[in-house]
């Protein structure tokens, strides 16, 4: 079954997202910020990355940028969880190499629908 | 998720909704019964630590696998003559429901008897026995196998004793 790397500094968001994903049959690797995610990414091969944008230590945009530098992550779908839907955020994300975004707040159903878009 | 279709007769045992099972015990020649679903366990008598300034029928408290459980001497509670405890003395540990809490209390009886099924029809109201057996805690009488069973309502057995608003201080 597909594996998703989820990154969010909010424990409650992580819990909700992971519970939803696991319930739908996905395997989940959890990280609390960009630095944590990067280190977990190196040892694993997830089918998609789902990351919050505003996090301490390394934000989501930088994380995506860094992940794209890793050979096995060049084409991995990476989605940003963002409360902003401004053009500015989209541009930043695109430039960093993000695949798409999911706007907060979202409910579990929306999350699963979006994940389906990127996992074959 | 689809709601599960429930078997109306209950799960497992083929139990009729109108029949209750009672564990019976002997006390001064009479046979009493308590709802078997409330029986937590049956223990042989071990010593109990006295609680100062409590009524006679409160034997004390016992250690039940780490929990402090009060022990009531039923003979005393029913104002019957007390007898000495021996190694055949038995304590029936019951779960008593009070409002929203559950209490575990042990009762010293002469001996454990049997388990009987009693239907609603078999249960008859009881007359006032007088003495210590108040109609408050007698559910009713039942005749089973030519025996008369006095069925107790244990939730009301300890009403006044375990009133949390009163403290155990009597003279």
């Amino acid at each position, binding site marked *: 079954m597909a594996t998703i790397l989820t990154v969010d500094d909010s424990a*409650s968001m992580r*819990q909700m997202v992971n519970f939803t994903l696991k319930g739908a049959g996905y395997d989940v690797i959890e990280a609390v910020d960009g630095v944590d995610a990067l280190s977990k990414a190196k040892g694993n091969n997830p089918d998609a990355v789902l990351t919050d944008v505003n996090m301490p230590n390394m934000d989501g945009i930088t994380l995506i940028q860094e992940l794209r530098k890793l050979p096995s992550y060049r084409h991995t779908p990476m989605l940003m969880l963002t409360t902003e839907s401004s053009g500015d955020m989209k541009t930043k994300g695109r430039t960093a190499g993000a695949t798409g975004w999911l*706007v907060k*707040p979202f409910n579990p159903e929306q999350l699963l629908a979006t994940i389906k878009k990127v996992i*074959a | 998720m689809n709601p599960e279709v429930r078997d109306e007769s209950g799960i497992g045992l083929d139990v009729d909704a109108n029949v209750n099972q009672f564990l019976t015990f002997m006390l001064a020649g009479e046979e009493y019964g308590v709802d078997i679903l409330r029986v937590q366990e049956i223990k042989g008598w071990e010593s109990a*630590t006295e609680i100062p300034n409590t009524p006679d029928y409160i034997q004390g*408290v016992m*250690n039940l696998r780490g929990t402090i459980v009060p022990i009531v001497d039923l003979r005393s509670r029913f104002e019957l003559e007390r007898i000495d405890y021996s190694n055949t003395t038995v304590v029936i540990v019951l779960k008593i429901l009070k409002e929203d809490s559950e209490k575990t*209390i042990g009762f010293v009886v002469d001996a454990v008897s049997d388990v009987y099924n009693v239907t609603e029809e078999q249960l008859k109201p009881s007359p006032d026995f007088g003495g210590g057996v108040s109609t408050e805690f007698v559910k009713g009488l039942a005749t089973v196998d030519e025996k008369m069973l006095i069925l107790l309502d244990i939730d009301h057995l300890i009403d006044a004793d375990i009133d949390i608003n009163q403290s155990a201080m009597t003279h």
Partner: protein
Amino acid sequence: MTIDISQFHGVFFEESFEGLEVMESELLELDASSPDVESINNIFRAAHSIKGGSGSFGFNDVTNFTHVLETLLDEVRSDKHKLNQDEVNLLLSSVDCLREMLTAARDGTDVDEAQVKSIHDELECALSNECVTETETETETETEAKTKTETEEHAVVKNESEVLAAALEWHIHFAPHLHLFQTGNDPLRMFRELEELGALTSTANISKLPPFNKYDAEECYLSWDLVLLTEAKAEKIKEVFEWVEDDCELSIEQGNQQETSNVVNVIADNATPIIEDVDVNKVVPVAEKKKDADKKAGASNETTSIRVNISKVDALINMVGELVITQSMLSQFGEEFDMNNIEKLSEGLKQLERNTRELQENVMQIRMLPISFSFNRFPRLVHDLSNKLGKKIELKLSGEATELDKTVMEKIGDPLVHLVRNSIDHGIEMPDERLAAGKPETGTLNLNAYHEGGNIVIEIVDDGAGLNRERILKKAIDRGLVKENEELSDDKVNELIFSAGFSTAEQVSDVSGRGVGMDVVKRNIHDLGGVVEVKSETGKGSTFTIRLPLTLAILDGQLIRVGTQTYIIPLISIIESLQTSIENTKSIVGEVELYRLRDDYIPVVRLHSIFNIPCDSTKLNDGLLVVAEAEGQKIGLFVDDLLAQQQVVIKSLETNYKKVEGMSGATILGDGTVAMILDISSLIRLYREQAEYKTSSAMNNQAA
């Protein structure tokens, strides 16, 4: 499948409250004129998290409020807005407001709407001083547009019966840029999505494919012309490509009609990303109100979960492992019992003792949290209170890392607050008074915590005016607590402030001094098994010292014997134990006995009499006196024998029985039997009742 996300609410509230604390402590340290960048970021992030979480979990009023707050903070951090001190105070008030809103959301109670609105308006006002109001209106129109399009789609999805009749032919030209794959997007997936909207046919254009030897597998050279037969609206089709709009050439036209009016241009669009098939009513789940608001409405901070460092858990797992090994070793002995192996058995038992002790210590550790959690509220409190009273006070915290039991910490919170307020209100003087007294204008308040002999000690030290002996004495005499000419040491006078209804504040301020405080503080501390005392020097200051046991569940006890019964006296209550000598006893009317111990006369409490149990001997000479204290009262307990001192686990009597006068609980001794733990203050009450009864009946007898 609908997922119930209310199970995550607890964690959300916990982390939100923590976030608020971060905001508060950063704001308190913030220099409005040149704010620290990292601080502003931390404050922003905390607000942002709360906004995001509250939105996801359906607490919309929190989201709306936090949004304005977050917007203001965002402007500060992007240098679009210069903060002033008033605004910092406004932000602090917002934190308070949010705290209330979150508590209300958690407990299902109501919040002060007027106050929320008022602070919300103030925040908006602060924002509008700059000209950036676009963000807000944008959000509003976005939300409007979102709602509109969603209702449209909802309507569209419903018309399934009209599929063929309303289906239109759409011609889509999709030419991704070379690097499309590097964004992780895949045309195939997008086409799959299109297929969900209707019948799709595609024609690929391979004209851009380079010769094989120049072919880079990571680039996209293909483009497509697609024909989609669907009743879905153009926006829906556009949506499929929303993530790649800037990475491709895209045109979506209605087939058979080349009119420009039907061409939907996708370039430079500010449209909101719309999630498919969303029922408007389901978008944001509404949090359910909890029914037992009563239980939590006491605004208590008590929580039922605890965060534990995973290393502590790992250590426990190891210890349990060792325990299991020891246990199997011992059970082996049981099976192959051999008198010659007694030594090994004894070794095994020692090992067991070590294992259990280690396990116990480490499990206790889990409930231990640093006292900083409690101390953290004080910078704010001191800041606000000193401002309010016009005093200058510096708060110094030390020993914040000192750990204590979580429940003890939660319960010591209020007493600590009261003592701190007391020091600020009555202890530390106004700046001019201090200067006149030759003291620095700014008063110092020290909060200190440390471990000492199995207890935690908390000190509240102020360099204020100290306790006023004359005022206290006068009040005590007025209240009848003390006789006019009684000789009292300074310490005894100071202890008087803990008496019920005592307050010497000339004007009862709303801060403290209503006279309900100190005795409640003392009682609360006593309930936790601790003690509080005060030392003071007029003109120099006061020190309040609280001593608490490290945990509520275990106490250090002294076992005593009366007749055949064993009882336990908490060590913390025992002052000393001594052999009685009849010369020091004095009897008063009835059977009240007093024992002279140095300068004090202590009532003798005969346990055998209070408990109506047999004892070895009723002659005082034959037994021992254990001098114990509770609530400032000393008594001498007459017992037959002193047994061992040991740690006992406190078991409740109330769980299955009820509260017993004179007992605070029970415990299970090594031999499996139950022993009662004595409650000294309750015993004192019992004793007094009996003594009064005996005295009055004796007097009646005399009179008769």
